[in-house]
């Protein structure tokens, strides 16, 4: 029974399946926030996740990976981030309900009640500090930092994993060229986060939890945070094994596993598969389809959407901020698009220019 369950889980696990199901859960979460945060949904989900871990801990391989002192914080991260997202959305949904009814928001309601800092803030903070100290002490007793043997320069560990905060980018390396995944995308992430206050000047919904008034922005941010960051970290920690092969949660990390990689470039698909002629010698002819596609992707949608769905936004933000916003959005969406192109068509690069070591 247990074995069958593990076999099933291993069988359905794959980067596509996990990414897609996570995206579906996400879409449900932002589309029906009230239902998703209600006790009726969230308690079973929590129990299901805990149950999965409980069942999984009976398996030796799962246990080995999940209880490694380095990975325990990531397990904690799943629960802690999940809790805070759920909490924020619950409050937001509550506030939206109150605003609709014309009632004061939770924050406004709270503002009318004032209590003394001491004891109500200090005391509870102190008790929490004590609890925090206990957690640290007990953690340090049971999860010791590993002091392994002296490093051997001729033996590289397999898998070689980046620290957890870079695992998302390491996962991106599977789908993108190192220049893109390691330089361009992190730059866009940082610049994008810095740019948010300048792009989103709206005062509506600030100072209190709210979802309805800021739906697109919150949804976009949550997508970027959960699907494109946390999920990839979780995958990189638990589901990527030796040689960066994908392993199901209950699969043994076998160093000898060989999975064929049969990816081809867009230029190969167009010129060899479809047109049947050889690859052109000059790179700008050879990659012309890919280059045109990329340019179209970045230029056409903003222009088209400005006239139609994003008309209001275009007006509010003015061309400069609008184009910056669209650029950032398009780059963000490019990630899942490229991932699906890879999974569906074994597409390696849209634009492959080995002459300049530049690939997209």
């Amino acid at each position, binding site marked *: 029974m247990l074995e069958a369950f593990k076999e099933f889980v291993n069988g359905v696990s794959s980067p596509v399946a996990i990414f897609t199901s996570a995206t579906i859960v996400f879409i449900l979460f932002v589309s029906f926030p009230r239902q998703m945060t209600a006790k009726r949904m969230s308690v079973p989900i929590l129990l299901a996740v805990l149950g999965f871990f409980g069942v999984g801990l009976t398996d030796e391989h799962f246990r080995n990976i999940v209880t490694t002192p380095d990975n325990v914080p990531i397990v904690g991260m799943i629960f802690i981030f999940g809790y805070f997202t759920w909490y924020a959305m619950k409050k937001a949904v509550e506030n939206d309900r109150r605003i609709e009814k014309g009632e004061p928001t939770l924050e406004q309601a709270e503002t009318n009640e004032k209590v003394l800092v001491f004891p*109500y803030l200090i005391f509870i903070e102190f008790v929490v500090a004590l609890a925090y*100290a*206990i957690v640290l002490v007990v953690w*340090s007793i049971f999860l010791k930092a590993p002091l392994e043997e*002296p490093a051997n*320069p001729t033996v590289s560990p397999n898998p070689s994993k980046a620290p957890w905060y870079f695992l998302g980018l390491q996962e991106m390396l599977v789908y993108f060229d190192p220049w893109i995944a390691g330089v361009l995308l992190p730059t866009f992430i940082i610049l994008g986060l810095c740019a948010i206050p300048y792009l989103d000047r709206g005062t509506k919904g600030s100072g209190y939890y709210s979802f309805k008034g800021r739906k697109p922005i919150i949804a976009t941010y949550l997508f970027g945070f959960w699907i494109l960051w946390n999920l990839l970290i979780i995958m990189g920690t638990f589901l990527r094994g030796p040689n960066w092969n994908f392993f199901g949660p209950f699969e043994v990390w076998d160093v000898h596993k060989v999975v064929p990689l049969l990816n081809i470039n867009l230029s190969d698909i167009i010129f060899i598969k479809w047109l049947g002629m050889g690859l052109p010698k000059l790179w700008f002819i050879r990659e012309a389809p890919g280059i045109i596609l990329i340019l179209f992707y970045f230029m056409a949608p903003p222009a088209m959407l400005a006239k139609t769905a994003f008309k209001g936004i275009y007006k509010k933000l003015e061309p400069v901020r609008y184009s910056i916003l669209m650029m950032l959005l398009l780059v963000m969406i490019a990630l899942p698009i490229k991932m699906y192109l890879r999974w569906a068509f074994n597409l390696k690069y849209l634009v492959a220019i080995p002459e300049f070591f530049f690939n997209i």
Partner: protein
Amino acid sequence: MAKQSPTLYSIAKTFIWFALASIILTLSLFGIVYIDHHREWKDTQKKFIKLKTEKAREELKAANQGVDKQKIEGISKAIAEAESAFRTHEKDYEKILAESAALDTKITKARGRYQDLKQFQDSYRYFFEEYSLHKDPKAASYDKKLKSLEPRLGQIKLELENLEKQKEEKDASAQGFISKEKELRKELDKVLDEKNLAEKRLKNIELTIAKEILDAPMLNFLAPTLKIQQIVLEDLQDDYHFARVQKVDRCTTCHLGIDQKAFESAPQPFKTHPDLDLYLGSNSPHPVEKFGCTVCHGGNGHSASFKDTAHTPRNQEQAKEWKNKYSWKELEKWDAKMLPLNHTQAACAKCHTNVVEVPKADKLNRGRALAETNGCVNCHKIAGFSLVGTESAWKSGPDLRNIASKVDKDWVVRWLQDPTSFRASTKMPKIFHLSNTSSPEDRERNNAVIESIAVYLMKHSSSVELLKPPFAGDKERGEKLVKEVGCLGCHTGAGVNVNDFGPELSALGSKVTPEWLYTWVKDPKRFSKDTRMPNMRLTDEQASDIVAYLLSQKNDSFEKTSLPEAKKEVRDEMILTHLQSTMRRTDAEKELGSMPEEEKFEYLGKKSIAHQGCYSCHNIKGFEDIKPIGAELTFEGSKELHQFDFGFIPIEHTRQDWIAQKLKDPRIFDQGKVKAYYDKLRMPQFNLSAEEIDDLTTFILSLTNSHVPLEMQRRLDLKDQKIEKGRLLVSKHNCNGCHTLDGKTGGLWTWAEDKGSAPPVIDGEGSKVQEKWLHAFLKEPTTIRPWLTTHMPTFDFSEEELTTLVEYFAYLAHEEVSYKGYETPVASAEKLGAGKTIFDKFQCAKCHQVNPESAKMGSSFLAPDLALTKHRLKPEWVKKWIQDPQAIQEDTMMPGFFPDGQSPVQDILEGDAGQQIEAIRDYLYTYEKTASDDPSKK
């Protein structure tokens, strides 16, 4: 009172939470202190203290029992009496003490006065001298002062001395009262001496409350009983890949009894190390302060926990036991794990380099010998062992360059199919039809390969003109000769199994022709110029007899084995596979088509020999300079564990388990894998017993790249190096097969019932024979002992080898090498006459001349011809030998004529033993051969 502020949550409940959190935090802080403070080794040390305490208690009990109770009673009674006697005079005693004290005060006062006056004297003297110098009139006054001081000083000194004398007398008389008691008490102490010592020892060792407190967490910096014991080794280092770190061995933290004799029967980890005279003792060659532990045993010396020190269990049972007792886990990534105890000798080779045999490392030496005998070093490069063509290594298999003159092709095919079917004791391993080439298709391929190798060898063999045996030969005489003439010094044969250095002499009738065997035993080098088989100098008749006997032994089942068919399609497919390594399939087929039929087997044979690496052990024409196919084993003992391919075989992932499995069945790691025929493992299967595999594993584990600084290595001086060179030659030519030499008993010596007819013991030959003679003898042996049937073979040594051997013998006997020759001692006619007289008296010629008379005595009584003395023996040695033969060679039949250095003949040379011996010696050096003995050259 102000307005009651609203509550946010219940304070009372929060108090409870606060209390709970505080308690838990305090407990967890105690937990931290405990975790930090509690260590495995502290428990172990406590156990050891308990052990020592028990031992000390037992010693105390024994000491108590050994005490003579009666004597104690007697003395105690005497003491009591003395005490009561004293009490009657107690008042007087006290009076004297008081007087003595009063005298003390007086003396102090007097001494003070004396010293003051002395100071004045010194000061006056100074001023007087100063003023006198400057001719100051004040000098006069000081002079007067000085003069007046003197008598006073003298008087006070006298007073002081008187007082001191009085005090002495008073003290002496006081002593008189109590002296008797004191003596008696001293006697009592002496009787109780041992018991007191044992008690003191127990007190030192016993764990008391005070000691336990001093071991507590915050206080154990003051004077802890439980502390880490470590040996810091300046000259030895641990290799941490990018740094070399000084070794610090903390093993003695738990192994507390390791260097003390008293703990041989204690449980581990307190047990004494075996053989403290060789290891650990301060007078041993490996004192623990200089060597520590990890340089021999491996492991992580810096740690003091059982698991982290990388202890290695001996076997599965011990591993389980450790898992339970010590929660032991294999350290996955630590690569300097401890060697399991049955392979500890592998570490000797780190420091004992450049020697043929490491002293006392019997397992390692056996492993080395096995590696050389079985040809491991021919195929696998091992630095220091396998320089083929130099003196360090030689090809272990026979030369195949003339094989067509020795055997026929069918024999080669049957032999390659399964060597043990011809001769079970052969050292030739099995190459085909092994565990990874036993499928029907692979068998067919094997048969094709065998056929083609045989074809190639026959085609590429030169032919040698063979001699024809002149006589038919007698089998019985031949068997007797094989047993007697010395074949058994290297070979097993004629039902005798003493040596197996050379191939077993069996089944030869199914292998070679009479012409070949006759040519071989008469002159081996005629057939194979690099062979180690020496020339036994057989006569034609002897050789014919031996040939007749050996060829009478056949192996019928081998001869009757059917020759498997080598299918042409299989052969052609294999040729195509070879061709495809350099060209495309279509081209290869064309090439194959154009190959003449006769050449196809030859072509495949050449490729197969190249693939299988036969040329590493055998000399084969066409393969003179090709590199062997085996993996280099120079650093196999340090090879990363993940570089060993365990395949799908469920053995423990350790080096020693992999090596042992590989030696047991080299092809087993192909099991479960999908591999083309030419990608399969190629190591042949040797017929090794479990013990041999264990020895070889020790040897292979000894091949490491661990860096030991030259100061710590066992360095050989020049003479030792020459001795090692000689030892190498001795092992190459199997001198120990016949002779007892250099600590090893000769094989034929052990086997001989009559030691007089066995090859002579040559221990101490270097101090016995002259170097020039030895050189000539080794080059061309002559007869020394005509009654011996065994021939000293002619080895055809090169000049370098001869020099090496002469130096070897000389340096073993701590002599210097001199080819100059030894001057015949010049002696007076009188002495020579005396020598001859004693010679006749002692009847030396009775044993030392071989004639029908003496031959009746039996060969153990016969002795070499004394006419050889002049050119053969060293004069000093002859003297020593005559004086006390047993001291030079135990159990010799030479009588000792001078027991205890006294001469039995008192009327010659004044009975002086030394002079007589010299006289005999001098006479011997002039001794000429008489007609009665004429030893024929054998």
